[in-house]
């Protein structure tokens, strides 16, 4: 079920009513209902995927208990390896099998081996929606128990809900057991302000997705799908459209997820913090897909030694998390190069100890940024746009062709496509984002000091815009990851 569909528009009030009016008296019943509805939400795509989700949940639930109950280090490690192995095995099979089969076959052929089509058969695999997200939920839980940061959960419904809670099930944020589980284990109370803030966040998320991302998607797709027909300036415009598409799409999804969860009195981890106002790449990565970045930091970067070793260890570990992050997005060299490029951007900051220069919010307490900040934001944004070209391209050849065309004299040629409406929408969108950048999301306090009717009119305008631009039910980019 998509957040931007009529299905969800009917599903959410139903769950809300069941949650606060029917099952509220008993926590176990309320959690059980949420779990059932989460499975309905997920099964809406394809009920067969539910078996994989249930299997993964059962595996981690029992492995967690086994690890927790055992004092024997070998046995603890056995359950840890078993759980991680099977989880990553599933992820690897569904997401990466064809990639490795094709690449390994090609390598053997280049080495002179006779490879027929059946040696590494490419098979039709349907990627279960959200598998990367719920696998990472389970992994963090198991690793945390192994590291004795948390005890195992014995209540199956609570654990299953932690993994499959519908607002975050298919595209995150990637939650931690330490943050979400305690909220699921205590009764929730309806909080008017929290619920209203949640609705505002849902509205802003829908605006980002339906109005901004889907409008940009049309032109980004048109330009990228026919990239050979366009000059450098138009290709750069296409990359810009994709830059706003992916931000509107993914951060919009996260806002709807967080807002939805607030309606149930449950706070989820923040996933985006106005990344396009970052002054360097390190800041960008503290503000983009935060739950994934921190996941990799805690479960990959730090275990590898983090920043404690020498310079080269830092470089190695940084490359490792960026490459793995790229690969996490999908089985394509374009994602790996995207990760590599970001690592290249990041390394100079790390080596010069400037990676934590911009911890605070840009131009905090001021209306406008300084000239220096504008320059830094522009450079960071430009570097990000270039990296997104790899992310969006079908393959490395296309990405390279686009880049070489952009960095040619054709960049100075007139635009072949100049859609005014989406560009105006982007300006409006970024203006609101800028004004709200000191808050959790742009609309959190925006307009709260206005006359209530004016504020209501503003919300109504946004709602009508969402309605006007909706109807296509475009899926979210991150569902494929």
């Amino acid at each position: 079920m998509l957040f931007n569909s009529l299905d969800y528009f009917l599903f959410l009030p139903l769950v809300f009513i069941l949650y606060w009016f029917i099952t509220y008296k008993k926590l176990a019943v309320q959690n059980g209902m949420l779990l059932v509805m989460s499975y309905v939400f997920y099964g809406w795509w394809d009920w067969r995927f539910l078996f994989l989700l249930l299997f993964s949940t059962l595996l981690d639930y029992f492995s967690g208990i086994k690890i927790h109950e055992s004092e024997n280090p070998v046995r603890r490690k056995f359950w840890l390896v078993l759980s991680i192995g099977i989880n990553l095995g599933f992820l690897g099979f569904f997401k990466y099998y064809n990639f490795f089969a094709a690449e390994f076959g090609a390598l053997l052929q280049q080495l002179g081996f006779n490879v027929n089509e059946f040696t590494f058969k490419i098979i039709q695999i349907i990627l279960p929606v959200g598998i990367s997200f719920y696998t990472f939920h389970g992994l963090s839980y198991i690793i945390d128990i192994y590291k004795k940061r948390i005890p195992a959960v014995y209540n199956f419904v609570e654990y299953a809900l932690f993994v499959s809670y519908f607002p975050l099930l298919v595209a995150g944020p990637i939650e931690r057991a330490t943050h979400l589980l305690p909220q699921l284990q205590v009764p929730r109370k309806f909080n008017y302000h929290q619920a209203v803030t949640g609705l505002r966040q849902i509205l802003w998320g829908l605006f980002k997705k339906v109005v901004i991302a889907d409008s940009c998607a049309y032109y980004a797709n048109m330009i990228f799908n026919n990239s050979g027909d366009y000059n450098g300036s138009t290709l750069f415009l296409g990359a810009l459209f994709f830059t706003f598409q992916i931000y509107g799409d993914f951060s919009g999804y996260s806002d709807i997820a967080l807002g939805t969860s607030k309606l149930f009195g449950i706070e989820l981890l923040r996933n985006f913090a106005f990344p396009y106002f970052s002054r360097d790449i390190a800041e960008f990565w503290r503000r983009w897909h935060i739950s994934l970045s921190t996941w990799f930091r805690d479960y990959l970067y730090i275990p590898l030694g983090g920043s404690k070793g020498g310079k080269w260890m830092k470089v190695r570990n940084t490359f490792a998390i960026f490459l793995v992050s790229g690969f996490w997005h999908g089985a394509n060299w374009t994602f790996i190069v995207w990760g590599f490029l970001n690592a290249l951007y990041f390394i100079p900051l790390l080596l010069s100890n400037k990676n934590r220069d911009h911890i605070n919010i840009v131009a905090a307490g001021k209306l406008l940024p300084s000239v220096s900040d504008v320059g830094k934001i522009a450079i960071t944004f430009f570097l990000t746009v270039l990296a997104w070209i790899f992310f969006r391209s079908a393959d490395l050849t296309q990405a390279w062709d686009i880049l070489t065309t952009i960095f040619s004299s054709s960049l100075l040629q007139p635009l072949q496509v100049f859609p005014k409406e989406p560009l105006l929408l982007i300006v409006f969108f970024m203006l609101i984002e800028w004004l709200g950048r000191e808050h959790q999301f742009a609309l959190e306090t925006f307009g709260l000091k206005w006359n209530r009717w004016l504020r209501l009119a503003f919300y109504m305008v946004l709602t009508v815009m969402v309605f006007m631009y909706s109807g296509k039910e475009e899926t979210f980019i991150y569902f494929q990851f």
Partner: protein
Amino acid sequence: MRLFLTKLLLFLLPFILLFPLYVVMDPFKVLRKYDSYYPAYGTSPANINKDYVSTQNLLHRYKTANYNSFIFGSSRSIFYRVNEWSRYIQTPPRQCYHYDAFGESLYGISNKIRFLQAQQIPIKHALLIFDYALLEGVEQPKEYFRQQHPAVSGKSSIVFHYNHFKAFYNYRFLKDYFTNLYGKKSSVVHDAALWEVNKQTYDAATNEARFDDLEQLIRTKGDAYYKERTAVFFKRSTTPQVYGAVIREVQQKQLQQIKAIFDANAADYRIVISPLYDQVKLNPEDLQFLQKLFGKEKVFDFSGINSFTIPVTNYYEESHYRPQVADSILKIIYSARQ
């Protein structure tokens, strides 16, 4: 909580009110029964589900009409006119029913034939208008206007109605719908479907549509009609092309069911493979299967490059051929018997 819900309901009221509006307007004519689902002459403000109309209209009339002859197919079958066909099968036109659907599939036709059997409606004569795309379809399409009538598909009527409501709950649809109802209709769109922009004459008794205005337009404009539509009439390959085989186990089963029902009814039937503008021939494997199952004398393949598909003037656009082609085909397939 009360304050929260009250404010939320008030805010969303305009969107919630769309539901009663849908019930009152019934834009797709799926909520109530109608004597005729299309205006006798004109265009519908909404794209109406022809599959639903065909079945609903049949249910409304079959007990008094005594239908016993049926034309099955997609919108490409529209131009096989009942009056013309009835001459060959020697049946009164009023006992013939054009049981078609937009984007019809083999799944749809096999369900319809089984439905007729379940309703104990005799099938004395049948004309099946097939093409590659129709044979390929073995599942219910997703678009609301291609959803099969629940009585025929056996699927949930809640899902059927929900899909129609979803189609209504859409700004673009609402804008077009109310413009068509109360505003100025858009001028002829060259690549729009026939029924969207051209007035049709609808006869509920035979469930048949005629596009006389369109014929008149072609007669008036002549070559200009085709010159204006060069983008629609794409350039065709000069070398013969063949579609990939589409009849697999599912289709085989559906076709066998159709054959069994025809046999049980001792029906006289013909199967036509349409002469499509693309000039791509039906795969020989598929043709062979059809001929083996139904008999060579029953299956007539007009796909590929031939005298029907060469003249552009035989087509309204790239998808639909004109009544003159259908008339000639009827003549060929029924004279072949004698």
